[in-house]
């Protein structure tokens, strides 16, 4: 079977401030034989504009899908917001001829057309469906059996179920399965599927940070050594903002927040310095020290 090949859709948040996710994702995908082709040109997936203009969101998403149509490649997105939006709009335009014609009239102004020949998937969906658990398990050469972690899926990888639908939003299993493939233990905790609060930043920061604090409290209660995310926005809420949350609410967490590909990368035996741990805000040295000592 030919190795899977995708158009890499970075989105806005990752190049803006979440490089560690991109660096580690490229590393693990390379190791798993997934080929990445860069997008020929870029525009935002459209999701940030949906609250103010559904129309603008549809056109922005459709423009990306039309570019992918031209390339004849499915899209892989690292951000669940981008993946969900592109997937949802693709489905809407395929099923609704009137809407498709309306949006294509806009795209035509720039010589583009949505044909609906390609699909968009999030990294996690590519890992579980296209690469497969068996291949991932085989790639693990240094099982992280000493690590106990907590997962955080985030909302847009799961909801709305009608459009995303590859996992159960009430009891998601995919990320847990992928974490366990690395040898680490994935702990259960209260309100696991709760939102990180990121979409409310800029509208009401205090509520957003209260949501993130709740999560960190619940994770602290079960003594997780780290939190594992698969979304740039969730990561910003817990890693970039952890210190801010500690100060604002007089708490102390010190919980490192790892991108899932960083965890898998460690288990694959990729040297930690190639997985951009130095880009993380919360100190990860304890985990890395344990990892290096575990090797001896």
């Amino acid at each position, binding site marked *: 079977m030919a190795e899977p090949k995708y158009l890499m859709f970075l989105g806005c948040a990752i190049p803006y401030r979440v*490089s560690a996710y991109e660096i580690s994702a490229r590393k693990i995908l390379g190791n798993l034989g997934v080929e990445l082709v860069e997008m020929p040109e870029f525009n935002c997936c459209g999701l940030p504009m949906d609250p103010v203009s559904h129309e603008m969101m549809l056109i922005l998403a459709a423009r990306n899908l039309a570019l992918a149509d031209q390339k004849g490649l499915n899209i892989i997105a690292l951000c669940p917001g981008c993946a969900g939006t592109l997937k949802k709009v693709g489905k809407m335009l395929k099923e609704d001829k009137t809407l498709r014609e309306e949006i294509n009239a*806009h795209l035509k102004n720039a010589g583009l057309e949505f044909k609906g020949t390609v699909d968009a998937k999030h990294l996690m969906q590519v890992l579980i469906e296209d690469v497969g658990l068996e291949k991932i398990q085989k790639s693990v050469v240094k099982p992280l059996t000493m690590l106990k972690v907590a997962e955080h899926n985030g909302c847009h990888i799961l909801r709305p179920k009608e459009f995303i639908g590859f996992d159960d939003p009430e009891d998601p299993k995919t990320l847990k399965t992928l974490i366990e493939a690395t040898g680490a233990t994935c702990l259960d905790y209260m309100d696991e599927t709760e*939102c990180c609060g990121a979409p409310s930043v800029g509208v009401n920061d205090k509520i957003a940070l209260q949501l993130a604090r709740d999560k960190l409290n619940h994770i602290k209660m079960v003594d997780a050594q780290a939190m594992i995310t698969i979304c740039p926005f969730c990561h910003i809420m817990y890693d970039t903002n952890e210190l801010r949350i500690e100060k604002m609410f007089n708490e102390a967490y010190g919980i490192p927040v790892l991108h899932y590909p960083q965890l898998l990368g460690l288990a694959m035996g990729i040297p930690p310095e190639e997985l951009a741990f130095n880009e993380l805000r919360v100190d990860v040295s304890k985990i890395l020290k344990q990892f290096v000592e575990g090797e001896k």
Partner: protein
Amino acid sequence: MRCFQCGTCTSDCPIARFSDTYRPRQIIRMTQLGLRERVLNSDTLWLCASCFTCTDRCPQDVEVASVIRVLRNLAAEQGLFPQVFKEQGTSILETGYAYKIPELRIKKRESLGLPPLPKGNPESLNKVLHGISFLKSIEKKSD
């Protein structure tokens, strides 16, 4: 709408947990009653995090989050929307990206071993977005 005001949306809403004013059930009720101006002028309309928990759990299949999105779109047409959307909308038109990626970040990619960042195509973007009403709302809104 088939909403029978059970309140599942509000009780499961992560924002309502911390806000004293944001109540999705109330927004849906006001919408059913046609209290247009009160709903569209309400600050709480912008608190929804679009997590879609309400939509997935509504026993009557009301797409609560999508109703709130439609209400926000209507408010935006009247120029009622938080400033952050003007900033992001303008950035998308100018660069393709919702945030202005600092030059330093773009240059740093090479030293991090990352491929060059795909460039936006403002000319093409302006063409495909030509004539949509939100662009007028952006122009009208003061900084």
